[in-house]
């Protein structure tokens, strides 16, 4: 086979070599042909340049126009180079080279000997040489060119023929080589089909079998060529594969074993995982319970804090109820508690509408009452919808109710009634917790009740203190601890600033407001000097004259500790005024009593001492008698007023009385007492009949007449009038005296009031007369009044209801008759 290949290579190489040779011939032939064409072109160009010289020179000579010299000049420069190039082209051809030499010489001679001198002559305006010379020379040159071209043309033709031959040879050789190559290739293919394809196919089949899994497939090894090696290699590969397969099988088995082991482990792990999950769930459950427990603890802490804090009764009750409901798992509830056993008020509710709950319950109140009575938790379950309460805005069934008594020591102070919406009993722990919480709640509520009671007591104390008219205050080291309302008012009135600012005052400022600054400061000093000593002093304000008693005393707490000092401020302005009035009254009464007494005592002593003549003695005794009577009247007046002061009204004994004789009689009595005054009595002819106490009416008339005389110190006429009209009978006494200043008129009927003139002019009297007279008139359902002008006199009058009948009873008829005679002067 190698030999066959070598033969084939030789044949192909020979064929290619022949073809290369032929092709070289063809290329050489075409190169020569192309050289010949170049030579002809160069020759033609040189011939044209010669013609350019001749025509340029001749044109310039004829026209003397420089434009004709442009081709001449370029040709003159290019022509020597052109001939040089032509000689180079034909250097390989001696005949042609010689011809080119001749042409070159002829051109040079034409240019130098003819053309240049011609141009120069024309430029120099000289006569140019004859043109025939030029024409002849150019014709000669053109002939030479023609010869050269012809020779060259023949050479070119010869070369073209030779080239055509070479091409024909090349084609022939090529065809032969091609045919030979094809034949050889066919032969080679046949051989290869036989010697290579079959063993290869066997190997391929074996490979297919291998691929299909038949690792035992082998190829027979024939000869020692590549195919044999291939077979050997294939067989070795098969062996290697078989070996690898066996190893893989064993590895696979091992892997399967390991896989099974892994699966076993995985199952174990899964089991462990389930267990862990269960534990985790358990833990979560415990954690959740702990959170719930923590929440409960927190709420109970809140409860405890609320109880510990200074919370009020309601807040404590609400916190207690919530804590108990939490512990019992209740959804609704109400808490009742009471300060005294027997009645328990609603203090808190949870979920329930308060309006629907009784405001208070007693120990007879159903299950709650039972819990209260027994002191233990009462728990009852209900069927669906048996017990419905109004809760959370709707009718809600309570499935289980609990009543937890709130016990404090031996006392049950309340009950928490709780409702669960689910029917589940109390767990043991919750039960204990409930009782524990109930105990705490009971203590808290009990304390709140005590506090409330204390607060109420404090409020009552304060209210009581405020109703006291005296100012009461307690001042400690840090200032005023307690002050009732009057204390605030009085302190401000005394010191001039509110109580809170009083401590900042300079005591001398306060002292300056009083009538006795030194006394005030001394009292303050006494208070400061001995904290354990009570003090008492009196302060009178200079501007208003108001008087205050100040009593201070140290206050000690139950343990003997000093709490401060109470100050009681008691206003005694009215008492002092009353005292003053009373003293004045006493002085007046005493004076009024002493005056008649002086006569009585003096005249009786004279009689006793001197035993006078009967007439003298009689005279003295008359004086004594009159004065004694006067004294008795004074005492009566005084006692009457005392009686009015005690009983409010004067006792009267009504009889039918005609005022006319009564008034006339009194007028006569008073007329006798004063020579300076005349009494004009003007009474109507008809009787002035009324139902009255005649002795009292006598008192009234006497008082009016007495006043008229006393307050008319300059004498004059005192008029006494009487009338009957509008169902009333009236009497008036008119004097021309001092009158009463307008400013004083409203005080005229005050007890013990005496007109300013009374003291100025030392007019006697008790200041009781008019007050008593008015009391008497009003006791008879009458009225009394006066008109007065200062300096002009007064008119005092009174009116009494006229009697229904017409007939007057009793005494006084004679006086009445006398009065009917009309006015008369006594």
């Amino acid at each position, binding site marked *: 086979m190698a030999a066959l290949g070598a033969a084939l290579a030789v044949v192909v190489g020979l064929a290619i070599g022949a073809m290369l040779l032929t092709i070289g011939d063809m290329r050489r032939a075409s190169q020569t042909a192309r050289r010949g064409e170049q030579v002809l072109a160069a020759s033609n160009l040189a011939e044209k340049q010669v013609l350019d010289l001749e025509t340029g020179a001749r044109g310039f000579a004829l026209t003397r126009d420089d434009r004709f010299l442009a081709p001449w000049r370029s040709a003159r420069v290019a022509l020597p180079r052109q001939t040089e190039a032509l000689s180079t082209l034909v250097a390989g051809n001696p005949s042609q080279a010689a011809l080119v030499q001749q042409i070159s010489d002829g051109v040079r001679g034409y240019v130098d000997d003819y053309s240049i001198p011609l141009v120069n002559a024309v430029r120099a305006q000289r006569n140019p040489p004859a043109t025939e010379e030029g024409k002849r020379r150019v014709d000669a040159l053109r002939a030479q060119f023609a010869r050269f071209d012809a020779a060259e043309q023949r050479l070119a033709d010869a070369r073209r023929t030779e080239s055509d031959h070479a091409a024909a040879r090349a084609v022939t050789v090529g065809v032969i080589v091609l045919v030979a190559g094809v034949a050889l290739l066919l032969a080679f293919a046949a051989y290869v089909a036989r010697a290579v394809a079959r063993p290869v196919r066997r190997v391929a089949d074996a490979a297919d079998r291998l691929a299909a899994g038949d690792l035992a497939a082998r190829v027979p090894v024939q000869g020692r060529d590549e195919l044999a090696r291939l077979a050997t290699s294939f067989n070795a590969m098969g062996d290697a594969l078989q070996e690898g397969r066996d190893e893989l099988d064993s590895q696979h088995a091992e892997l399967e074993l390991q896989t099974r082991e892994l699966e076993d482990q995985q199952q174990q792990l899964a089991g462990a995982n389930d267990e862990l999950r269960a534990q985790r769930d358990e833990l979560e459950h415990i954690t959740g319970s702990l959170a719930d427990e923590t929440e409960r603890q927190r709420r109970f802490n809140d409860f405890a804090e609320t109880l510990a804090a200074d919370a009020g009764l309601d807040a404590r009750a609400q916190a207690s109820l919530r804590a108990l409901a939490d512990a019992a798992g209740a959804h609704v509830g109400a808490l009742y508690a009471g300060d005294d056993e027997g009645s328990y008020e609603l203090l808190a509710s949870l979920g329930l509408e308060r309006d629907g709950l009784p405001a208070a319950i007693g120990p007879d109140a159903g299950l709650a009452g039972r819990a209260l009575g027994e002191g233990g938790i009462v728990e009852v379950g209900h069927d669906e919808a048996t017990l419905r309460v109004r809760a959370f805005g709707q009718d809600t069934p309570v499935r289980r109710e609990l009543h937890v008594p709130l016990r404090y020591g031996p006392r049950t102070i309340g009950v928490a009634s709780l409702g669960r919406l689910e029917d589940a009993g109390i767990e043991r722990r919750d039960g204990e917790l409930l009782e524990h919480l109930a105990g705490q709640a009971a203590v808290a509520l009990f304390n709140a009740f005590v506090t409330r009671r204390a607060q109420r007591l404090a409020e009552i104390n304060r209210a009581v203190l405020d109703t006291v008219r005296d100012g009461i205050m307690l001042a400690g080291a840090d200032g005023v601890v307690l002050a009732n309302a009057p204390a605030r008012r009085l302190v401000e009135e005394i010191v001039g600033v509110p109580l809170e600012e009083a401590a900042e005052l300079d005591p001398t400022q306060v002292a300056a407001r009083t009538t006795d600054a030194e006394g005030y400061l001394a009292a303050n000093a006494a208070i400061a000097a001995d904290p354990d000593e009570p003090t008492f002093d009196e302060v009178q304000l200079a501007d208003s004259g108001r008087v205050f008693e100040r009593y201070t005393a140290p206050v000690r707490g139950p343990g003997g500790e000093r709490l401060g000092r109470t100050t009681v401020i008691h206003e005694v302005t009215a008492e002092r005024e009353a005292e003053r009035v009373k003293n004045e009254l006493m002085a007046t009464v005493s004076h009024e009593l002493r005056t008649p007494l002086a006569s009585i005592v003096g005249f009786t*002593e004279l009689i006793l001492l001197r035993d006078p003549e009967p007439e003298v003695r009689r005279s003295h005794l008359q004086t004594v008698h009159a004065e004694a009577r006067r004294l008795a009247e004074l005492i009566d007046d005084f006692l009457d007023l005392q009686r009015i002061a005690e009983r409010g009204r004067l006792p009267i004994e009504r009889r039918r009385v005609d005022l006319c004789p009564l008034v006339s009689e009194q007028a006569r009595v008073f007329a006798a007492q004063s020579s300076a005054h005349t009494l004009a009595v003007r009474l109507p002819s008809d009787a002035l009949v009324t139902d009255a106490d005649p002795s009292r009416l006598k008192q009234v008339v006497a008082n009016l007449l007495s006043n008229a005389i006393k307050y008319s110190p300059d004498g004059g006429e005192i008029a006494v009038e009487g009338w009957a009209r509008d169902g009333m009978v009236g009497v008036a006494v008119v004097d021309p005296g001092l009158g009463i200043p307008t400013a004083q008129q409203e005080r005229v009927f005050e007890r013990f009031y005496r007109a300013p003139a009374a003291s100025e002019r030392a007019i006697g009297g008790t200041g009781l007369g008019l007050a008593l007279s008015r009391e008497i008139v009003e006791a008879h359902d009458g009225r009394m009044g006066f008109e007065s002008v200062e300096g002009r006199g007064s008119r005092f009058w009174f009116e009494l209801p006229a009697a229904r009948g017409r007939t007057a009873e009793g005494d006084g008829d004679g006086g009445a008759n006398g009065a009917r005679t009309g006015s008369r002067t006594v």
Partner: protein
Amino acid sequence: MAKVLIADDQANMRQLVRLTLETGHFEILEAPDGNAALEVARREQPDLVFLDWTMPGLPGVEVCRALRGDPAHDGMRIVMLTARSQADDREAAREVGADDYITKPFSPIELLEKVRDVLGPEALL
């Protein structure tokens, strides 16, 4: 003979004093109110004046004050004879210059003793 003025609005009182003193050797003068008392006292220069306090016109203490304010009446003895019996009243009387003070009611003997004390024992002879 000593001159004695009795000033009192009550006639009974003037009579009582005069009767009491009539056993002695006195010239008795009377005045029914304060102004009259002052006028008589200035005019008559009595050795002794009995002054009621509560009189119309000028009260007795004011008569006393007026007399004591005039040096012409130095040596005149003035005795208040009054029903006012308060300690304050006695003090007020002393302040205006009264020599003595007799409260009503009084006994004639007491009055005579006062006269003797004020004017000297010979006045009663």
